[in-house]
């Protein structure tokens, strides 16, 4: 039994060593500048990961911006506002969102979400926010923005369910204390619950970020696979995970493959750090065994 428990460490070690050894070629050739350069040319074997780092960060942050208010809003509604009878069904539905596989999200995004964005949402954004340079023509629907939207839908359930857990963990005595001062319900939620739960909520947001950073299939299907950095959010881009997904199987050259593995190594390290940070924050609030993620 102990051996099997230790296997968890073995798995982590295994992944780490394989990643490091397979990226050695690229590490030697490009050094750490690999992550600061913008280049991706399999023909001349010139690789730089900056466009993918940009794509990953931009799509993830965009996803968070959309998801966090909605997730907290749902959590507040389910925990503090909705009738008791609805609580079970609503929380089940939000958890169901977490059960949908990434590739199915991608399929839906390609055929339903992207046309919707291209037809109705993006023109409005171009008209209203075009001056910022963030939303410009040409708009094919596919691109960073679409990836951000589908990411938002995908990380919503994890942020929401964890927020709900930390909110429920706030003792009712705190709620009563605020009410007894003569507060409205929203004030009670704001001062008595959200304020007390804020560390845990931040933790759940970081956990959502971790999910978004590593999300592969749905993003690969709608981001357009273009390894360049644009200010225009409607332009096609690429993320660390999407470039690996799209190019690894066909990468014939050792250096090429090694560069992709190095990107994978970076992804591995970043998601581990982000997850550790998030877990530490959430553990501190809920005390005891941490909640299980979907």
């Amino acid at each position, binding site marked *: 039994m102990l051996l099997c428990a230790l296997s968890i460490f073995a798995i982590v070690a295994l992944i780490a060593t394989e990643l490091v050894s397979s990226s050695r070629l690229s590490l030697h050739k490009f050094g750490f500048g690999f992550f600061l350069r913008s280049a991706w040319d399999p023909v001349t074997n010139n690789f730089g990961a900056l466009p993918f780092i940009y794509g990953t960060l931009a799509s993830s942050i965009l996803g968070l911006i959309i998801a966090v208010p909605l997730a907290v809003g749902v959590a507040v509604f389910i925990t503090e506002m909705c009738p008791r009878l609805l609580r079970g069904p609503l929380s089940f539905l939000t958890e169901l969102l977490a059960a949908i596989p990434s590739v199915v999200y991608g399929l839906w995004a390609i055929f339903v979400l992207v046309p919707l964005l291209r037809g109705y949402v993006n023109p409005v954004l171009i008209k209203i926010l075009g001056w910022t340079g963030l939303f410009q023509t040409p708009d094919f629907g596919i691109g960073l923005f679409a990836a951000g939207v589908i990411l938002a839908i995908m990380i919503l359930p994890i942020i929401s369910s964890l927020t709900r857990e930390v909110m429920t963990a706030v003792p009712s005595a705190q709620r009563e204390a605020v009410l007894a001062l003569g507060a409205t319900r929203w004030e009670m939620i704001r001062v008595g619950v959200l304020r007390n739960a804020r560390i845990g909520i931040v933790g759940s947001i970081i956990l959502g970020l971790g999910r978004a950073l590593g999300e*592969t299939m749905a993003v690969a299907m709608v981001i357009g696979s273009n390894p360049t950095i644009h200010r225009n959010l409607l332009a096609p881009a690429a993320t660390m995970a999407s470039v690996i997904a799209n190019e690894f199987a066909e990468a014939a050259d050792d250096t090429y493959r090694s560069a992709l593995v190095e990107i*994978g190594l970076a992804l591995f390290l970043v998601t581990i750090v982000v997850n550790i940070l998030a877990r530490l924050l959430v553990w501190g609030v809920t005390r005891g065994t941490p909640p299980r*993620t979907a």
Partner: protein
Amino acid sequence: MNPRLKTSGANRKLRWVANHTATGLAVLSTILVIAPLVAIFADLVYKGASSLNWNFFTKLPAPVGELGGGMANAILGSATLLVLASAMGVPVGIAAGIYLAEFGRGTKLSNLVRFTADVLNGVPSIVMGIAVYALIVAPMKGFSAFAGGVALGIMMVPTVARTTEEMLLMVPLSIREAALGLGVPNWRSVLSITLKTALPGVITGCMLAFARIAGETAPLLFTAFGSPFWSMSLNQPIGALPLQIYVYALSPYDEWHRLAWAGSLVLIVLIVLSVALVRFVTTRGVLKGAS
């Protein structure tokens, strides 16, 4: 009543408005969250159900342009991979879970293991794929079902370990004490009684991991690789349902798009059934002899 503290009428109105605005925003958020869920399921049924016929489940993919093809090999491939993955991941995961719940409870080591398992659950699955590629595919000089099974199996271990631990922890102390009171040495009592009591929960925990793995595509991209044919051996590439959906979705052919929707519907139905079952077991507390 004689109010001494003078609150302004404007302030009271503002608070009233803020209160109702907050409620409105919360309701709006809930609707905006449920809407995509409903839309996705509706689209799956609408676009996928019509292609679910006998051909779908029994035929191989047809050449481009021809109708009547199916995803039979992908379904069988997924089943094969899941069996492989479970054979590797479930025993290790359950054993780790037993350790965490019964023997290492409260120790620093088990806390570290649990923490690491949770962190591992957050690592992107494509990274697992790369690691298994380097470990198995490269030396073996070819994609294989075996590699795919290993990649998925590795992913099952932390999930199964944590759910097993949680289910075991739900078995009340009184049952363990009864077992010890019968004079049975510790590890036997754990296995025979506690595990038996928690078994329904543990099984559904495995199903949860199963359901999660069933939908995974990324780790299979360069391990199992996918195939349009029946797989004859574990050393050959093998098709899988999510892989096939991915390929079909990105293709330019309408017929394949239809198949992708159908395949997604099948996948979703299986996953939803598992999730619902898990919820049923954990909220009803179906632990024989407990409560």
